[in-house]
């Protein structure tokens, strides 16, 4: 579904990613894992076209997207939830969702689907986004990304800074999406999150990727976490 093949990218001359390769299939959660500065978020931004890459290729359902402008990437069914949520703070919950819905022109029932998945948002529909709690903001950011009906969802540390009950809700939503056939690429720093929801894990080290490992196999190889993040 999403194929990343030997991409290299970075910021203004400072190369961060070096020949990174992996793939994500439909109905699968792949976790990008590594220390701070390993290039996880840079990798997601590169897929979204926010950072250009001249080397390697990124394909979505067989269509090359690596040279597309950032605003055209979501039209290929890729949703992105950046770190820190990045909501439109002065807009209400409903307006934030509308912004997501309007990308495809019509609702197609996605709004109700999102509100069913996150009932808390239904209670806060007319509330401004900046008055929501951290967990509710994450639900809204996730809900807004779902409004474009993504086939592939990129999540950058969705549970960062959330209380445990909210973390469980977000994880449940991510698993539900996986079960519906959405391909999910997740950036995570929490070992428990990786082990509980990921199907495969791609370790990033100094901008270089290692061969993916099945999450179930990692349980038997605790030295991997020791090696890549020192826990």
């Amino acid at each position, binding site marked *: 579904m999403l194929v990343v093949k030997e991409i290299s990218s970075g910021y203004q001359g400072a190369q961060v990613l070096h020949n990174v390769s992996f793939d994500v299939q439909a109905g699968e959660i792949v976790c990008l894992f590594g220390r701070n500065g390993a290039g996880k978020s840079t990798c997601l931004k590169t897929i*979204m076209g926010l950072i250009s890459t001249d080397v390697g290729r990124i394909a979505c359902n067989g269509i090359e997207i690596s040279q597309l402008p950032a605003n055209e990437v*979501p039209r290929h069914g890729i949703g*992105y939830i950046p770190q820190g949520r990045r909501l*439109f703070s002065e*807009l209400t919950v409903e307006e934030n969702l*509308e912004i997501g819905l309007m*990308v495809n022109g019509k609702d197609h029932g996605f709004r109700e689907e999102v509100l069913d998945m996150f009932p808390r948002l239904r209670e806060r529909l007319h509330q401004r986004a900046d008055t929501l709690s951290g967990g509710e903001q994450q639900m809204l950011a996730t809900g807004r990304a779902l409004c474009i009906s993504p086939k592939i969802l990129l999540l950058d540390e969705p549970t960062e800074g959330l209380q445990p009950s909210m973390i469980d809700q977000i994880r449940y939503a991510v698993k539900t999406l996986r079960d519906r056939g959405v391909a999910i690429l997740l950036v995570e720093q929490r070992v428990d999150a990786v082990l509980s929801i990921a199907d495969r894990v791609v370790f990033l080290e100094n901008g270089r990727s290692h061969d993916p490992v099945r999450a179930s196999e990692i349980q038997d190889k605790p030295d991997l976490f020791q090696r890549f993040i020192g826990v």
Partner: protein
Amino acid sequence: MSELKKSWLLHLGIVALLFVLQFVLPSYHHASMARIMVLTCYAMGYNILFGYTGLLSLGHALFFAAGMYGLSLSMQHLEWLAGPALIIGLLSGVVVSLTIGLLLLRTTGVAFMIVTLMFSQAGYLTVLYFGEFTRGDEGLVIQQELRSIAGIDLSDPTSRYFAALLLMTICIIVSLRVVQAGFGRVLVAIRENNERTRMLGYDIQRHKLSAIVLSGTMSAAAGACYCLLFGYAGATFASVQYSIFPLLWVLLGGAGTVLGPFVGTLFMFYLIDLSSGLTTAYMLIAGFSLVMLTLFAPQGLVGEIRRRGLRWLP
């Protein structure tokens, strides 16, 4: 009652109030109100770009003057009637804003402000340079007998008032429609977070260009109507002062509110008018009032009302 209905009722109520005022206002305030309504349209155009899209322009006088000179030059030198000349005024606004907009999209932030200011100054100097046609600072006077459309004499105070009210009503409807439509939501999203909006799949440049053209055309409509209703086009209207005015009106009334430009223009007009009757240092009073207002109502008068309770105000 839904918020949508409430906001339409409020705005139509204000239009109705202004309609009634025409029968009761003394002649001086009657003429002033007509002028305020036309200038409000200029501020409403500015508000689309600054208040809703978050693009701070320091050169909107260029669009106002484009409409003004589009109308006056075609009437004066081509001897066109007011109706077709008004259309030329509007088209001038469309062409100028589209051309400038395409160039402006290459800039952001401070560079955007500086480039708008430069274009505006270039427009002002062009008006002065072609003084043979524009009569520069002295300006062009449109004869009273030429200022009529479909047999309606627009130099007549009553007709002029209603024409100004009609223009303002159109601008209110356009602003409300824009704000309540998806297009308006995307503009606010761009103002809030340019990059985030792009990541959702929106073509930011196309939306910004649309906002510039809409804003420029509304400003040009105000410029053309000002010239038609008050019979004068001068280089002063293309100067930097007339680029700063709509910014002040919008800030005072409330950026990103439909009624803010009207309240701001009304407040500023009468503040200067009243204080100039008290002292020759009237700008000092005006300046002090503006500082106070900025300190105690930083979101503008209508913005403050919205913040304090009427959250449904568009």
